[in-house]
């Protein structure tokens, strides 16, 4: 079949190339959020007080918990790469499972955080926000967009890691052939990296 | 730069035209010189004339030369561009200020004594400052003869200033695309000698003198001045908003908060539609295009407009 006619081309496996590709993809993701960071910094500069006030609505505690969760999950996925290199399949799977569980925990936390806001009537287009100052509208608009986009990346990352876990379980990924695992790890660290900046910008400006 | 008739139409013409001419001179030189060299080479070194090419890999000194010379030239261009531009940002304190409002799709000029016009009248040889305000989307006020242009961004204060140097009437355009009638957002600047301008300026006898006995004439004038006719036709043709021909007293299907209902077009509806344009949208038209005229039109004005509309339904 045409798609597989090129097996002979794929036969030449290029892990380094795959990694370069992944990094470039990560750059595009960084710049995607970069655009939002530009918007954030401009509006924060233009409305310092309103941003300050609006940030009071966010719970530093929830934010901190989520940061800790993501940092730990970042470590576990990084460890899973060492584990596969040590040929410890079981530990690899456990570490990836922990990562997925923590990601899920993050989302649960996020769900409660968002639904809390929404039940207080703070969501785009709500009557409360329409009467708020312009800076507050912008703050919450950015808050929902940036954390929402970030949560979307968490979900994509979970799907990616889940897929790689299956490959590990089926022994498609082994100690000498784990570039996909490494790439899924890179993606997960990217999610972490973005959160490292989102956290102080939204939760710590009170 | 291109029309000798208006070299001094405003105080900026010289700066702009100088930078333009300097740059034009440089680029014409390069365009002609490079094109000529190119054509000469193609003829001189065509295959039949020069069957064997001489391999030349490059020359560092040439590369440096043709990096440095353009760099110097572009800095010259930048300099002329900058000094021509700089005075445009510094309006004198005592400038005669006119509030200039752009909206879809007409201009309105408000003078300090309350006069309102849709044509810009300015005194000769006196600094004029336009305080710019856009009501809906971005517009851009452009007076080609004065070499002046400034965007009007909603929610942002902007200004432009100039000293008119020659009596006459000049075009004024909108140059930032602003929707359907963008190209008809066109009016003129009239430059008058100081004495004539003063006479015009003091004459605050509103529009009364123009009013005939014809019913609705005052309403028609108000409508024209506020740019209503950019979107509402008087002859039944469909523009952005419903035509006013036969509108008053007609039964219309409108969309109110997402629901269809029928109503009769009466004074109450017209008042409400001018104050809250989006509350009842006639079926087949789009919401969000009309701004509230609550602050622009008094209740008396609206009554006059209704009188005028009635004449269209007879």
């Amino acid at each position, binding site marked *: 079949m045409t798609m597989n006619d090129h097996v002979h081309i794929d036969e030449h496996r290029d892990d380094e*190339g795959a990694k370069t590709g992944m990094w470039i993809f990560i*750059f595009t993701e960084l710049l995607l959020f970069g655009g939002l960071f530009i918007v954030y910094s401009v509006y924060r500069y233009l409305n310092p007080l309103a941003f300050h006030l609006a940030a009071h609505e966010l719970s530093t505690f929830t934010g901190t918990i989520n940061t800790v969760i993501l940092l730990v999950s970042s470590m576990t996925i990084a460890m899973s790469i060492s584990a596969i290199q040590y040929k410890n399949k079981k530990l690899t799977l456990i570490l990836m499972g922990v990562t997925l569980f923590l990601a899920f925990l993050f989302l649960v936390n996020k769900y409660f955080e968002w639904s809390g806001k929404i039940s207080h009537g703070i969501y785009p287009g709500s009557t409360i926000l329409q009467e708020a100052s312009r800076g507050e509208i912008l703050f919450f608009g950015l808050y929902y*967009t940036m954390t929402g986009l970030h949560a979307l990346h968490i979900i994509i990352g979970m799907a990616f890691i889940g897929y790689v876990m299956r490959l590990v379980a089926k022994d498609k990924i082994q100690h000498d052939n784990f570039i996909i695992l490494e790439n899924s790890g890179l993606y997960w660290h990217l999610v972490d990296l973005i959160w490292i900046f989102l956290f102080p910008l939204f939760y710590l400006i009170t | 730069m291109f029309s000798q008739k208006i070299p001094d139409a405003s105080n900026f013409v010289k700066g702009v035209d100088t930078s333009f001419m300097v740059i034009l001179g440089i680029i014409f030189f390069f*365009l002609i010189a490079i094109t000529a060299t190119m054509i000469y*080479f193609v003829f001189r070194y065509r295959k039949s004339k*020069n*069957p064997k090419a*001489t391999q030349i890999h*490059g020359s560092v000194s040439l590369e440096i030369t043709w990096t440095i010379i353009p760099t110097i030239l572009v800095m010259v261009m930048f300099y002329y*561009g900058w000094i021509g531009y700089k005075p445009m940002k510094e309006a004198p304190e005592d400038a005669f200020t006119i509030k200039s409002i752009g909206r879809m799709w007409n201009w309105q000029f408000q003078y300090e004594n309350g006069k309102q016009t849709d044509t810009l009248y300015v005194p000769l040889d006196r600094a004029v400052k336009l305080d710019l305000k856009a009501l809906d989307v971005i517009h851009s006020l452009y007076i080609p003869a004065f070499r002046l242009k400034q965007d009007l961004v909603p929610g942002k204060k902007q200004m432009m200033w100039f000293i008119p140097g020659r009596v006459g009437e000049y075009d004024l355009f909108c140059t930032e695309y602003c929707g359907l009638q963008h190209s008809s957002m066109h009016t003129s600047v009239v430059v008058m000698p100081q004495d004539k301008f003063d006479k015009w300026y003091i004459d605050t006898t509103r529009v009364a003198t123009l009013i005939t006995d014809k019913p609705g004439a005052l309403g028609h004038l108000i409508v024209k001045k506020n740019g209503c006719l950019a979107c509402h036709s008087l002859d039944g043709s469909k523009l952005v908003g419903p035509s006013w021909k036969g509108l008053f007293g007609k039964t219309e299907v409108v969309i109110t908060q997402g629901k269809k209902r029928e109503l009769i077009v009466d004074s109450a509806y017209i008042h409400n539609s001018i104050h809250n344009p989006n509350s009842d949208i006639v079926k087949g038209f789009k919401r969000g295009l009309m701004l509230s005229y609550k602050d622009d039109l008094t209740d008396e004005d609206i009554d006059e407009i209704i009188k005028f509309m009635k004449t269209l339904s007879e």
Partner: protein
Amino acid sequence: MSETVLQHNQVSYLEYQGRFKGLFAWIFSTDHKRIGLLYLYSMLVLFSVAATLGLLMKIELIAPGKTIMDAQTYNSFFTLHGITMIFLIVVPGLPAVFGNFFLPIMIGAKDVAFPKLNLLSWWIYILGALVVLSSQFIGDGPPDTGWTFYAPYSFRTGTNMLPAVTGAFILGFSSIATGLNFIVTIHRMRAPGMAWMKMPLFPWALYGTAWIQVLATPIVGVTLLMIVLERTLQIGFFDPALGGDPILYQHLFWIYSHPAVYIMILPAMGVISEIIPTFARKTIFGYKAIVVSTLAIAFVGYFVWGHHMFTSGMSGTALYTFSILTFLVAIPSAIKIFNWVATLHKASIDIQTPFLWALCFLFVFMIGGLSGMVLGALSANVHLHDTAFVVAHFHFIVFGGTGFAFFGALHYWYPKMFGRMYDKGWANIGLAIFFTGFNTLYLPMFYLGMIGMPRRYYDYVEEFHGPNIVSSFGAMLMIAGLIIIITNLIRSARKGEIAEADPWKGKTLEWSIASPPTLENFDEIPVVTKQPYDYE
């Protein structure tokens, strides 16, 4: 399997039959050459549509007032013309068609690094094109914002904005995928011996382009996403009614869209750098200078976006920074022109159709670039911004630059791609008519801008009438030329005489293999020992 492998190296990529037959053999093929042709065919169709829109607009402008269409139609025409030409043709154009086809061949590889991703990017491209075009037929009527989607008009217009914006957003992924693919391909798959400084200039140009595609496109992606969110969910970003700043939208939009101009022009310069040495029978003058200036353009081009906003009310500091940077980015382009012309010195020039295209490119590109100098100067810009002068300037760059290079590349590589030669006589006649029409169309627009005719005008005052007549006439002439050129090419794909492997006596790797190439390009990966344009 071994039999098929043999077959790969005997049958050309055009005749090769995989598992699928007919159309499916193409749209499911991961062969970089077939993908290149898929892009070529899709673009020719879209180009005909967009060029027709352009012609209709020029006919409308032949006289003031209504000529053949109403204002709403005109506004939606220039919007669709812009979106199609920019996002669907000029930005992906050269990389997707000729980059896909020739990048692997020119660096001595069998395919790109990620062939499946490559096919996927074509699919995304088609999806994006369909979404953009759907905006014409569904919902509240064709969008009328111009291709720049400036806030707040794009939030206020009642027309069908969302599909257009979403389509542009989707196309971004296609662009990123292509760029990513090319970077990895160039890094990892160069033939043995092909050091960076032995790589031909077209791959170099694609390398610079790919980095811009990868690093600039996400910014416009997220900006368009913000428009979608603002329109659907009333999240405040750029609408002043919700606290936003419309000028910030312009910043973000041009942070991408200015580098996008370099996505358009760098590969075009790469093509010219290939054509000139081939027909001059001479190594290129200042290879290193051209490489360095390619990278310099890609880099500095990232920081000049503000020159689209000189009259928007930016701060003075921003104004002169952008003005200086704008002038600086002109220098590497100038260096390239000097090097190309110097290459002709003491050459032995074989004047053929592709070379004529390159000469015409040099002329119109110079006009485009030099007129940009006028626009880069602050004071002249205040007068000329948003007038017909700007329209003329960027058509000279984008159409005159990229468009001429695109057709030049098509005439240059045509025998390699299809294994046949077009009718050279007709090709030259077509070029002559096209070139005349092009200049008749756009030169008067410079003048119109100088006397103050704003752009995007459906109607104009009487004093602009004369030049508009000339310009509209030029449009018709130009379209006539295009028809001749394209008909000639389409006809020759079947009926042209069989081309030899190296009809132009080129020295880069693509001329060392069969025309049309076999499925795997090379029987054996070549070992490179010489400079790319070695005519010693």
